[in-house]
């Protein structure tokens, strides 16, 4: 069982990101689960979304999770929420920030000694998609850090997931995914 927890603000696309990832993973024959804990359900409020992936049917519906990956797509949540909650020694973090990994860890001591990667998904999204929707770039960064899928396969799959959007937006998302893949440290 692979478990992923997303930290986001409502409106930043964590649910879409988690469901998009589940859609792609499902096409490879794996069982998937994608859900969210909406909290106060107001735009801008801190929220968490979750993915589970397994080779056998997923029966567990608890929200409690010891994540393998923690994906943080809003830079401030590292300080205002506990993104390390219920982690384990091997948990991998990918965090959106304009800072370097060292600067980030220095600014939030809870991340000291953890496997932390950083990428500026907000900036990438603004420069490619034109809006601060950092979900698809985070998936590009996840592909790089996890080695889950080849980039060509992943991007082809995401084009299908996003097919209802205008072509210009889809192209911008593909660029965002590639940039985050290349830039994550």
């Amino acid at each position, binding site marked *: 069982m692979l478990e992923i927890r997303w930290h986001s603000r409502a409106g930043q696309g964590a*649910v879409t990101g*988690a*469901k998009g990832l*589940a*859609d792609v993973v*499902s096409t490879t024959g794996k*069982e*998937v*689960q*994608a*859900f*969210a804990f*909406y909290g106060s*359900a107001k735009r801008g409020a801190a929220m968490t979304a979750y993915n589970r992936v397994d080779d056998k049917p*997923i*029966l*567990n*519906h*608890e*929200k*409690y999770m010891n994540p393998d990956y923690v994906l943080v797509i809003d830079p401030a949540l590292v300080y205002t929420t506990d993104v390390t909650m219920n982690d384990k020694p091997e948990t991998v973090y990918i965090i959106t920030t304009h800072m370097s990994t060292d600067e980030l860890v220095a600014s939030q001591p809870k991340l000291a000694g953890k496997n932390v990667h950083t990428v500026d998904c907000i900036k990438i999204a603004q420069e490619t998609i034109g809006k601060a929707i950092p979900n698809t770039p985070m998936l590009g960064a996840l592909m790089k850090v996890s080695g889950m899928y080849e980039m060509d396969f992943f991007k082809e799959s995401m084009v299908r997931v996003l097919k209802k959007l205008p072509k210009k937006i889809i192209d911008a998302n593909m660029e965002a995914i590639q940039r985050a893949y290349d830039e994550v440290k």
Partner: protein
Amino acid sequence: MADTMELRDIEVWDGNMAAAQALRQVQVDVVAAYPITPSTPVVENYANFLANGYIDGEFVMVESEHAAMSGCIGASAAGGRVATATSAQGYALMVETLYQASGMRLPIILNVINRALASPLNVNGDHSDMYLGRDSGWIQFDAYNPQQAYDLNFVAFKVAEDHDVRLPVMVHQDGFMTSHTAQGVKTLSDEVAFNFVGEFQPMNDMLDLDHPVTHGVQTEEDWHFEHKARQHNDLMTKVFPKIQAAFDAYEALTGRKYNIVECYDMDDAEVAVVCMGTSVETAVEVAKEQRAKGIKAGVVGIRVIRPWPFEQIAQAFQGCKAIAALDRSSPNGAPGMLYNELAGTLYNAATRAVLTGYVYGLGGRDLTKSLLNQIYADLVANAAAGKPTTALQQLIGVRGPKLEFL
């Protein structure tokens, strides 16, 4: 003629989309609906399919859930295939019309996306709304995941519209935990799905002007009891064979097997948890982990809540030594519904298992595997002692001092 939608063999859908796709595939003629979280996407998706030409039907926007079910009643009495969806406060506002729909023997399908009842206001999943409707004369199915929300809708139409049944059916799923959780759903093609349910066959429809009928009549002490008795008789005797036949036909079509009472690892179980919704699946996983430790643990999931499967339940617990009934609704001054129904069912049955109750998960509070492990530990102690070692009712997963009663 509606367009066909090409679906992949497995789509990643949440429970709401799964239910909406089923409503599209059976080509529901009329949806009268008023949106409420977390059920909104069911009717929103129906409206979307309709607007894009995938359904030949009618979406009626109304001013309340009372009006929504009233619209459904009118459309169903007129002679159409009818469905809608609701949750919580919307369901509560519908209650008066729920009794009208079942008493008028109208085969309406209601997707209930289970949610807590205010106050305090809460949009998350528990079973208070589902419990509220249990004496309303509807058939109630419970889905534990999006696949089942999809499948049970087809079974619901098949059973409801059978001319020997003619009763409305609710298909329940857990708010958010199923309705907003995306999982792989094995799909049917539009043609196969529609043919399983078939063309709607009207009965006593008001638009059949050659055979005028009256709907919604008044009966006082002269006839009221006879009508209610006949409805109860049909629920007690006619519905289960039709549900079983529909489950069998669905299994033959899809390979997916449903049972009126779902038993997991119950053949030799000594301790068993009984619950509904997503909790069933989490409990099944915990029971397997208990088995790995040598505990003979099982799970019973209630698939058909109404009519209550008295005989199948009594059968399920033969050989069981301790049972926990898990209620996801505040009984507000009584034992929980499942506890009471099980006690009533097992009192004259062969089993003499120790029965205790737990109230859990109100307002979407997480049912963790850790809590389920504690319940099994209680059950093992009860089985060994041959009597309750805890209070008969415990509240679990709630903060503050331990609350237990009876």
